[in-house]
């Protein structure tokens, strides 16, 4: 299945990666060459086999609802690229309108 420069641009946008001008076409060729190998998977006999997401098939061990605050050995302000009055700070969203747009 061919991979277009537009496919690469779309994936890069989703992944929040910037492409150098003109890089999409070259990357598309590389991805296409990898996916050519991946296409062989279509020939595998997998009828009736459910997809498996993990190598482990034990059910999740749950955690009791007991506070267990894990102390941070390095203060947050030491790791934060920008920090003010206890908050991480970032520039505004391009789409900023003063309200949240969570899905």
């Amino acid at each position, binding site marked *: *299945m061919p991979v277009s420069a537009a496919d690469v641009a779309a994936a890069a946008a989703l992944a929040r990666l910037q492409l150098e001008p003109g890089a999409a076409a070259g990357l598309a060729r590389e991805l296409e060459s990898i996916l050519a190998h991946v296409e062989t998977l279509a020939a595998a006999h997998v009828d009736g086999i459910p997809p498996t997401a993990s190598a482990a098939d034990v059910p999740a061990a749950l955690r009791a609802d007991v506070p267990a605050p894990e102390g941070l050995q390095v203060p947050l302000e030491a790791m934060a690229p920008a920090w003010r009055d206890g908050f991480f700070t970032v520039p505004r969203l391009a789409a900023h309108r003063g309200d949240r747009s969570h899905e």
Partner: protein
Amino acid sequence: MSDALHRRSIAGIAGDVASGVQQATAVVRAALSDIVRCESGPDRLNAVISYDHDAAVADAAAMDRRAAAGDSALPLAGVPVAIKDNICTLGLPLTCGSRILAGYEPPYEATAVQRLRAAGAVVVGKTNLDEFAMGSSTEHSAFGPTLNPMDRGRVPGGSSGGSAAAVAAGWVPAALGSDTGGSVRQPAAFCGVVGLKPTYGRVSRYGLVAYASSLDHVGVFGRTVADAAAVLDVIAGHDPLDATSVRAEQPALSGAIRHAASRGQLPLQGIVAGVPDEYFPDWVEDGVRAACSTALDTLRELGATIRPVSLPSTRYALPSYCVLATAEASSNLARFDGVRYGVRTRDAATVDVLWELSRSAGLGAEVRRRIILGTHVLSAGYHDRYYVQAQRVRARIRHELDDVLASGIDVLFTPTTPAPAFAPGTHAGDAWGSFQSDVFTVAANLAGLPALSQPVGRSGGLPVGGQLIASRWREDVLVRVAAALETGLAA
């Protein structure tokens, strides 16, 4: 001789330190002196990318005090260890071989590292890796490539190339690595040391920076099978902080090794080793093929029965891995966004630009390529064709391996890699080639099975690795066979 202190077996070092015959500080100083001498000189391997000499010596001194106070739970007393730099340790930076984490020091420690320290081990340094463990050569690090101590004109393999090189150079008897598609076993093979990847869920991943969570394992390098087993004994076991870590009984592996040694003249009597035809295609390098034949002969001489088996889905392993690993990577690396930690582009007017610039500048080319591939295979319109199909194939590969290992086969024997260590730049510009040297190792990750690579000979002067794969939770079988083979080949 004091400068050989750290080159002894783990049992030797720990026994002497625990009993006060030897000082942990002396052992750790010896290891650090090797590291500092080599890494600050013109012939540096670039295997250890950060260390804190004084802190390590202080840790060793604390260890000596514990031994003097009669602490008996110190199976790794005074053992210097190196940690791959995608595993969190307190007091040292965490880079993952990437620019994007510049200046980051983790505020917590990985469970495996905590357990090492509790058992008396002393962390002497963090080792180089392909950025975020994506690669097979340790060429793709923001800190430059690591060289292979066996032949500086060759790569050490990867992504845990720094840990493999540190053990192969004799600096430490053991090191931690991570293995997502072969990243412990393949560099072990290239550097001529033992690399052990346990069963998925055997060792907590808490504190291991995720590349592909369903395939990632913390693994161990050792100079010998016994050394690797001694470290796995310490780090294995359920961790309430990792929901995929499993409460499974683990008999002490050191016991399994003694058991192998104490048998009569045929230590592998009753063991059936399966040899899958698909792992010996005609493109396996001749020297590798020859070394594997010798190993199989040795196994037979040790009492094992060798039986041909078939794993027809083998050819799907690498493509399936390639889809799943990159898909999960695209997700796992989304957190490196310059908001809470790591580097951030200063001059961004909006956070959208900040994300793009920080990620593009901070992440290397190979990582960006894999993220874009992984994003593509998960995106609308391609998800079922690539991601879901790869999951089904993964299930099939796993069933196939489980079935073979349930049919009277105790272990599978294969070459670890089709060829010995390659020269730097071999796969430059070849996108698929960078996955290629994992062709024999990825199946054990897809299936979550324990697997081990050990030196089985040489080809053109370079080490050749042989791989053993056992049933889930049967690390004891794995190390028993490996230890016997190690002895047999040395004889």
